[in-house]
């Protein structure tokens, strides 16, 4: 007996090394996998943030402007009506010509004018209209730079590369360098990015419409999907009899979760827009479509959460004479709530990032004004990203990344909310 015991000890000891080595190997593989995951995430974030950060600054040029009534092409005592139609573009152009008198040729002049943003004239108009006393004076004002000039000022253009390969030409670089040397350039925080709608000009484009649109769409989605989803889950889990029909429903809900989102878009187009004649491009339709898409997720996760509630709680409630409804709403749902909320917020996050179905219902339109209600046309963040990523102008590249950053910020906030709600409910 004792001999055998010793023999076993020796055998076990011999096998120990191998076992520990295997364990070590597995641990290292796991660490490597985690490391790899983090590496890719880091590269992605680095790339996006690197590209997107410059979008949060804007470049301005200090231009000496002759705001005489002559130059503005208005009467000296012009009223607001006339002022709004004054020739601000001409003022800016002549001022630029005055600052660089050596520019003579037509094509050079056109390049010179391209230093300043198209939006500068509207900015100037707004300022003059706000303060008519400016008429007749000479002012040095900071005007928004054109996105190409701005990209050079931000150091994104290599002046030594062949001229044909870049959009900022040698002449423009010379002028910008001169302006820079005269301390006539500055950069500032890009508030316009958050306050403006979409624009053809990268330096004027903002995500306000998309932000509003995303918020409204998600609100509609949540208000529809959460109550319907939770109620469906409660019914299926607690009240529905188990038979063929409920089995069929369960299978179909599971299948529905796997249906490509674009199909929901087609459904939205066919049913809500063509049949019910809801307005196109509206957050209402987008929200409904996304709600349909999110419902299966919410139902499935809610059912799982309800299922995981210990049956002893139900029994306890029934045991003191609670009705089934009371048992479910007083005891089962509060316990299942963290799980339900987590599932719902994951579903909402999915909806937030969804593009394809919204393309189908026309939320891809070019919209400059923020929507005031759920029936006004709007777009959403991922669609905005999609649109900008598609634009040829260099300035939109950084806008794309910046919009992605905002979208991710949104997602992080939603996840944080999920965690907070979870903790809050679990404490009780």
């Amino acid at each position, binding site marked *: 007996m004792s001999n055998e015991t010793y023999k076993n000890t020796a055998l076990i000891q011999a096998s120990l090394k191998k076992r520990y080595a295997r364990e070590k190997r597995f641990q290292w593989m796991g660490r490597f996998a985690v490391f790899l995951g983090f590496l890719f995430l880091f590269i992605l974030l680095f790339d996006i943030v690197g590209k997107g950060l410059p979008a949060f600054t804007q470049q301005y040029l200090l231009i000496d402007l002759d705001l005489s009534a002559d130059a503005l092409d208005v009467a000296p005592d012009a009223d607001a009506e006339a002022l709004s139609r004054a020739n601000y573009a001409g003022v800016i152009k002549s001022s630029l010509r005055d600052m660089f008198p050596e520019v003579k040729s037509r094509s050079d002049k056109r390049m010179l004018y391209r230093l300043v943003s198209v939006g500068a004239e509207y900015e100037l108009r707004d300022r003059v209209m706000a303060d008519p006393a400016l008429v007749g004076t000479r002012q040095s004002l900071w005007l928004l730079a054109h996105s190409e000039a701005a990209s050079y000022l931000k150091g994104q253009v290599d002046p030594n590369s062949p001229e044909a390969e870049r959009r900022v030409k040698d002449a423009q670089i010379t002028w910008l360098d001169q302006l820079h040397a005269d301390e006539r350039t500055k950069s500032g925080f890009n508030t316009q990015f958050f306050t403006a709608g979409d624009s053809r000009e990268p330096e004027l484009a903002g995500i306000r419409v998309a932000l509003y649109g995303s918020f409204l769409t998600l609100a509609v989605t949540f208000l529809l999907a959460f109550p319907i989803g939770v109620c469906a889950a409660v019914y299926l889990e607690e009240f529905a009899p188990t038979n063929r029909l409920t089995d069929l429903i369960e299978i179909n809900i599971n299948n529905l979760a796997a249906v490509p989102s674009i199909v929901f878009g087609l459904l939205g187009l066919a049913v809500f827009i063509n049949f019910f004649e809801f307005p196109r491009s509206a957050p209402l339709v987008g929200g409904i479509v996304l709600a349909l898409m999110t419902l299966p997720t919410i139902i499935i996760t809610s059912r799982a959460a309800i*299922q995981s509630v210990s049956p002893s709680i139900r029994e306890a409630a029934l045991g003191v*004479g609670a009705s089934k409804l009371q048992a479910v709403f007083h005891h089962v749902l509060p316990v299942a709530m963290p799980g339900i909320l987590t599932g719902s917020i994951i579903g909402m996050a999915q909806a937030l990032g969804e593009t394809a179905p919204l393309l189908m219902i026309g939320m891809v339109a070019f919209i400059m004004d923020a929507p005031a209600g759920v029936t006004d046309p709007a777009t959403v963040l991922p669609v905005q990203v999609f649109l900008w990523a598609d634009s040829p102008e260099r300035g939109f590249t950084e806008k794309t990344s910046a919009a992605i950053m905002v979208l991710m910020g949104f997602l992080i906030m939603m996840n944080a909310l999920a965690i907070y709600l979870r903790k809050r409910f679990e404490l009780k």
Partner: protein
Amino acid sequence: MQGNDDMNQMKTADAAVPEEARGLDIHAHADVSNYETTGDPLLDNPKMSARNVNVYYGEKHAIMDVSLDIGGNEVIAMIGPSGCGKSTFLRCLNRMNDTIPICRVKGDIQLDGEDIYHSRQDTVLLRARVGMVFQKPNPFPKSIYENVAYGPRIHGLAHNKIEMDEIVENSLRRASLWEEVKDVLDKPGTGLSGGQQQRLCIARAIAVSPEVILMDEPCSALDPIATARIEELIDELKERFTIAIVTHSMQQAARVSQRTAYFHLGKLIEVGQTKQIFTNPQHELTENYITGRFG
């Protein structure tokens, strides 16, 4: 008399299904007819009475022709090996089996002479009159106060906060838990020790002033000291309530009950005064079970 097929059935997870409903079909070979319960299952003036109760889980015949009376203010213990039907029978007494979709109950069960399986019998009212304490302490994940106040609240037994406070205090006192928790009434009930949780569950059950309390292995998850406290409590409670207790511990049955019923493979084999069952059982199966012999 009808089963519960027409009830809204509520799905419950497997854990709620008594052991009889799961596992092997141990009843396939059992002879349903021709057996008679040894001893005296019937009483003169019973609080609850069951006559020829049969319970089926789908095809399985879990309880066979059981007739048993439960007298007022007595503690009756139901013992027997696993899968013998004792828990199932207990759950028939407040229609807790209704929650199991595949379960059918046949026979006649009366509370104070009223048929509890009658179609007009309301299960909510029934369960307010026949309370239940479960195997695992299962306080609601709410405060101690809320745990006790829940039953009276949903039944509208208290008209204001003062009355409710009174009910809660009395219930906790009767469950001999008041002294331990009176300063922490707003703390979650799940934070108490196992034994305290079970006493909280008893307080919760008696808060609605039931006439009968069913206990399904109430001490199986508790240590001997906590068990002793619950047993002491049962002894005190029998002054006011009728108690039916299912237990795996024969010693516990011997300690707390006045009558003992022995179940075996779905049949009620023997019923008698606890003293007699434990010193001189009449049926061989009872004897074998009580003395720990091979079946």
